[in-house]
């Protein structure tokens, strides 16, 4: 049976952190889904990993350096071309600061 690991309030909190907007129905469904998945992944606690080094990289590597040289990159026009709203110079976004 599904243990209710994650409450609806917790889902709203995580959604806030992830910048996602959820309605009540979605929050209910996701709380159930995530509780089931989290319940499942807690299986890892059966394993003792006290002396195990975490695997941070897929393939062991050393620092990779390169010369600090100016190289061609995409133009301003090209980078603005994909934006939903711009004025030819900048990306435009809704108001950031609330002013009285």
């Amino acid at each position, binding site marked *: 049976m599904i243990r209710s690991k994650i409450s609806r309030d917790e889902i709203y909190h995580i959604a806030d952190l992830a910048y996602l907007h*959820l309605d009540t129905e979605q929050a209910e469904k996701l709380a159930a889904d995530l509780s089931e998945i989290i319940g499942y992944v807690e299986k890892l606690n059966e394993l003792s990993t006290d002396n195990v080094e975490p695997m941070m990289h897929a393939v062991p590597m050393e620092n990779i350096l390169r010369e600090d040289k100016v190289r061609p990159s995409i133009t301003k026009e090209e980078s603005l071309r994909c934006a939903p709203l711009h004025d030819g110079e900048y990306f435009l976004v809704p108001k950031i600061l609330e002013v009285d």
Partner: protein
Amino acid sequence: MSEYWWGRSASEISEYVKNKEISPVEVVQSFLDRIQQVDTKIDAFTQIWSDYALQQARSLEEKIVKGKSPVGPLAGVPVSIKEVICTQRGFTTCASKILAGYRSPYDATVVERLLNADAILIGKVNMDEFAMGSSTENSSIKLTRNPWNLECVPGGSSGGSAASVSAEECVISLGSDTGGSVRQPASFCGCVGLKPTYGRVSRYGLVAFASSLDQIGPLSKNVMDSATTLSVIGGRDPRDTTSVDMPLPDYSERIRKNVDTISMRIGLPKEYFTEDLNEEVKELIMKAVRILEKQGAEIVEVSLPHTEFAVATYYIICTAEASANLARFDGVRYGFRHVDSKNIIEMYKCTRSEGFGPEVQRRILLGTYVLSSGYYDAYYLKAQKVRKLITQDFEEAFQKCDVIVGPTSPTPAFRFGEKTQNPLEMYLSDIYTISVNLSALPAISVPCGLTQSGLPVGLQFIGKHFDEEYLLTVAYLYEINRGQEFGNPPLE
């Protein structure tokens, strides 16, 4: 000479084209006709680049006629590209609403290399949104059908790639494999799918899902064509610092050279042959093992004791990485934006909730949760430690054998809707493929037979780090001794 060219291998097509026995324009036209004919049933393609493909073919023809510059190893070979790989031509949507209409300003390194090898880009193919899924049902664009049974899924996330190759709408496709996304659809659609060692192929221009697991790989009808493609797309790229500077052999040449003298110790992991494995799949795998044994392979039992923890480990690591990678989709610099927001936070939230599909949002939330304050050690750090144990299992197994053999997927292709209600059940269908990504190893799925109901089954070979040469040689040896032509799915 036959009047149609679909159904031919890459090596055959490129030979004919190089020797001026056939015009690449004719080849491309033949494949475009094939797409016209069958893609209404399969729906593998999201974009068909007819004019561009013919234009590439004409330039290649001109180059061959002039005879001055060398002709590449994939001359005239039609290739499809998964929607997650950036192309200057057309759109790069990741099958997501949030990137609908997005045009990449640059080509991925693998795309540049295909073009340098004189391959013909024929279009882009469907996938699960942001490569998250095992059935291609999570695409925001459309459903893709399995050419062997139109009521079944093609697998995923590279479902469009596998279906397009299987239905012979192209010869090669590039997919991406984070937890099995090249191998599992290859298995479901009866074609070959190769996941190279992590770092073998540049990820520059691959839209990131889980950066420590993602790897681009080819799908094709036979092992040799995947080998040739790996020689083309592999190798160090300064634009991806995780791509490794290792010698990149001409794999097809090496395979031909090695195949007669290869010695094999084949490891069968006992954890892969439990009651979770479908009985029919198991029989076909064991039949394949006996074929390898006849070719002189020594069969040994090996153990990968942490296998049962792989799915849990994977879904912590991949969702954590995905939640970070997908933070860039905010409606500011590219893609979809929700209009009429009062302020920027509302704009971010509405854009992301409307732009991402349910599975992507589920994974972003799970990833955010496991990385959030107070939970990091319990989940993410723990998973990285278990990832180490899983990797050590393989290191130990490879003391006893040269290559590991087992099923690619516990079942053949399933029906639409069968697993969409329960995300965990869908995740568990990747049980045999995800440990390979966690351990950064190379692996290949090769068709090994059809079930009673006519669905293909894939045999997975897992090799040692950066030893694709050996892996591909064993896979090729199996393929030429399989003694069974899988040929075409029943599409006519």
